[in-house]
C-alpha cells in the first residue's frame, strides 16, 4: 500500500502539488515520510513532552504556507525549518533561553586544561575503554548518561548536533533550517561535541554520569 503510494509521486513537485490540493493520500505519504525527522528535531528543542504538539502545529502551518513554498530547498528541509521556528516560538513564550550569547559563553572545562603556552597541562586525555561509538554505548550506564546529557544540551546545540551528526545535513542546510549563520553553526557544533567529549571522559574516569 505504502509502496504503491510512494510511486504515485515521481517527483517531489507532484507531491507538493497534491498536498496543496489537500489530497489525503499525499498527506499520508508526507506524514509517514517526514514526521520522524520533524519529531526528532522538535525533541532537541523542547524535549519529549511537547515535541508532539510542536510537530502538529508545524504541520498545520506548513499546509497553510505550502502554496507559497518556493522550492528553493527540498520539502523536508523546508518542513524542518518550520519545526525549528515553531519550537523557537514556543521556547520564547516560555521564556526559555535561546540567545546565542548564552550558548557562546564557553564552558571553562576544556580551556583550563592548557598552560600559558597552550600546551596540555592538567588532566591530559587518557585512553578510553572503547574506540567505537557502539562499544561505548554497549555500557548501559553510559548510554543512559548520554541520553540525558544530549537531551539537556541547550536547544540550539542539541538541534545542530542532531541535524549534523544524526541526519547528516551539511552546514549550509543547517544554517537554512535553524536560521543561524555558518560561523554560529560551527560554534554550536564545537560546543556540543566538546560537551559530549567531556561527559564521556568524566564517565571513563569516575564511572559516574556528568552532572551537566
Amino acid at each position: 500500500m505504502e509502496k504503491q503510494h510512494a510511486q504515485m509521486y515521481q517527483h517531489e513537485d507532484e507531491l507538493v502539488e497534491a498536498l496543496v490540493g489537500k489530497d489525503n493520500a499525499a498527506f499520508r505519504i508526507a506524514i509517514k515520510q517526514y514526521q520522524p525527522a520533524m519529531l526528532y528535531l522538535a525533541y532537541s528543542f523542547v524535549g519529549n513532552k511537547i515535541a508532539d504538539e510542536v510537530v502538529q502545529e508545524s504541520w498545520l502551518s506548513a499546509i497553510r504556507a505550502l502554496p507559497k513554498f518556493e522550492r528553493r530547498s527540498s520539502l523536508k528541509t523546508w518542513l524542518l525549518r518550520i519545526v525549528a521556528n515553531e519550537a523557537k516560538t514556543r521556547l520564547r513564550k516560555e521564556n526559555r533561553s535561546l540567545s546565542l550569547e548564552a550558548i557562546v559563553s564557553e564552558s571553562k572545562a576544556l580551556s583550563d586544561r592548557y598552560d600559558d603556552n597552550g600546551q596540555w597541562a592538567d588532566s591530559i586525555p587518557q585512553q578510553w575503554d572503547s574506540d567505537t561509538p557502539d562499544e561505548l554505548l554497549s555500557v548501559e550506564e553510559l548510554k543512559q548518561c548520554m541520553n540525558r546529557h544530549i537531551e539537556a544540551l541547550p536547544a540550539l546545540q542539541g538541534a545542530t548536533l542532531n541535524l549534523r551528526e544524526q541526519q547528516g545535513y551539511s552546514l549550509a542546510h543547517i544554517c537554512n533550517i535553524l536560521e543561524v549563520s555558518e560561523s554560529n553553526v560551527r560554534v554550536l557544533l564545537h560546543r556540543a561535541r566538546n560537551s559530549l567529549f567531556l561527559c564521556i571522559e568524566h564517565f571513563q574516569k569516575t564511572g559516574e554520569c556528568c552532572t551537566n
Partner: protein
Amino acid sequence: MLTCKDVSDVASDYMDGPTTLLQQINFRLHLLMCVHCRRYFQQLKLAAGIAGKYELPAEPSDDETDALISKLNKQKT
C-alpha cells in the same frame, strides 16, 4: 605552529572540512607530533559519533496519521 589549545579550538571545524590547505597541514603536523592531541581528536570524533547513533523515532501509526490528516482537513485556508 598550532598549540594544543589551538588544536582544540579548530578540531570540531576540521571534522566538517574543508579548511584551507595550510590549516590542514598545520593541524595534521601537530597531531603527528603530539600524542595528547591525537588522542583528544580521536575521542572528540568518537563523542560526535555517539550523537549519530541515535535512531529516529518510528513512523507514526496509522491511527496517529489519520488523526493528523483530519486536523489538516479541518483547517481553514
